[in-house]
């Protein structure tokens, strides 16, 4: 039994001739925010999809609390894919309730959680509106609420900050850090924005060409994360 909540071991994935993941391993503990950075096509999205089970790895293993992760554990993950997705014509409240129910939350609880998250993210007044009628910023808030509405045991967020204005970044960062503090939820997220990774993450992994090329706590790096990143991705 490991003290790590989520462990990835030696994941490999190819698409035809293209190698997307070439032996990636890392682990995340309770209450830890793990960020990984890397250039486009480095394998970040593939990695997250494998954790979620949306994609199958060619080899390697994903473990949750020491055992291979299964459908039930995966249903307890909160996910924000890189390509944002909501039902455009569905009303905000209905959408949150539906998503919570999909994750196995019962109807009453789903209603309560939906109300509470709309309240927290300041979109209660939009509850009856279809998502497509909302501003982009508010759509992002709904997206975050969708990832959090079922009180997940683990958060996997692909580029959660992309497309957000500074206020949105602050609101999202605040909601995340609060979830981590309140319930000790481990968080895995990917980003292009090194400053945000430095600001919110307890540990960092740098991924390039399907391999984890560097990692550690940002405050333990020699020099800035940007220097380490540049050095690591040059190889």
């Amino acid at each position, binding site marked *: 039994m490991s003290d790590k909540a989520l462990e990835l071991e030696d994941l490999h994935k190819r698409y035809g001739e293209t190698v997307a993941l070439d032996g990636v391993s890392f682990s995340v503990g309770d209450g830890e925010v793990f960020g990984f950075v890397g250039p486009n096509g480095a394998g970040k999205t593939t990695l997250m999809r494998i954790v979620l089970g949306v994609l199958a790895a060619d080899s390697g293993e994903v473990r949750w609390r020491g055992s291979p992760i299964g459908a039930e554990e995966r249903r307890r993950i909160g996910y924000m894919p890189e390509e944002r997705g909501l*039902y455009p014509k569905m009303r905000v409240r209905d959408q949150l309730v539906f998503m919570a129910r999909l994750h196995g939350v019962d109807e009453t609880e789903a209603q309560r959680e939906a109300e509470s998250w709309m309240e927290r993210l300041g979109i209660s007044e939009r509850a009856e509106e279809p998502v497509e009628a909302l501003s982009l910023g508010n759509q992002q808030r709904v997206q975050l609420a969708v990832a959090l509405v079922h009180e997940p045991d683990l958060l996997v967020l692909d580029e959660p900050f992309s497309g957000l204005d500074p206020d949105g970044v602050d609101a999202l960062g605040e909601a995340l850090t609060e979830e981590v503090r309140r319930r000790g939820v481990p968080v895995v997220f990917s980003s292009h924005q090194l400053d945000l990774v430095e600001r919110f993450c307890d540990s960092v992994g740098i991924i390039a060409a399907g391999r984890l090329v560097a990692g550690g706590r940002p405050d333990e790096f020699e020099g800035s994360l940007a220097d380490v990143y540049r050095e690591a991705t040059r190889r």
Partner: protein
Amino acid sequence: MSGRDAIRLVARRELDEGLRSRAWRASLAIQVLVVALIAIVSIATGGDDGPSERKLAVHGMEAERIEAKARAAQAGYGIRLEVTREPSAAAALRAVRDEDADAALTGAGLAARPDADEAMLALLQNAARVVGSEERLRRAGLSAAQARTALEPPPLRTTVVQPQEGEGGEGLAYIGALLLYIAILSFGYAVASSVISEKSSRVVEIVLSSIRSEQLLAGKVLGHGLLGLIQISLIALVGLAIALPSGEVSLPDSTGETIALVFVYFVLGYLFYGCAFAATAALVSRQEDSQSTTMPILVLLIGGYLVANAALNQPDGGLATISTFLPPLAPLVVPGRAAQGELAAWELALSLVLMAGAILLAVRLAGRIYDRSVLRFGAPLTLRDAVRLARR
């Protein structure tokens, strides 16, 4: 959460969102309106089994002779004359003006309302011509009997051929086939566009992070099928509610069986085509691209409808029999054959078995194609890609 719960959740979402959508409501309103119109029109034109009654006001010897001649020939015109003898020509005209009669026949000729029945006018004109000709022939020296023989040669022998089952079966058959075609097409398309809209909005990735693709597919197909059932039930109810109480529309004996089969074959046909539409829709990421991949299914369905129409012309013919056993065609043909009383019990049983087998195959194939393509975004996949994916 069990797989069944997941399917039910997805189906309920599709149902709720569908019932709320303007597109669904509009299409329901239009179809109910069309069916109501058909029912009302058939009531208005109904009762043409018997001759239509026409009132004729008559005054004068000559007029009475014409009237007698017309009465002898009225059946051929689908008319039954109801004659009143008026004391004067003026009284006969007054009867027309007061709408007590449709036409007046007097020594001065024929007087009729502007909207008078053409058939009645033709009947009276012909009768007048015969009476006039008889008169002239007699004056030319022929006896009355000779004149009549000359003018009224024996009529063409006609034989009335009764349809085997209650009449109106053909009409019901074509309406049933059309209704099924429209329902399967529109709800098959609805599933396709719902699949694509989940892909194009990318929400499918979130949904598939918590439930399996087969569950999502099954829920979507079921949800839209329920919408379809609600719609055709309402349409059938409105049609019957208008047609039945009037007593004007005589429904064939096969009506009950036909309606039941329309429902059964809607479910079967929709499951078959709905899966096919869903699987081909999963190959594309944008609505604009859907035409190319759903085209073969569309061609199959439209072709099926055309074949069904041809088959229903001769419901006991070879084409009709073969179509009964071809799953893509059977839903459009079987209820129509039953409406015309041309469907044997063993044919129905075999058709249902073959249909069920084809649906099982379609569900499995669609599930595989859907599973392997629904998370592929970007350029549309071809049907060949789909077959390759399904093999893996």
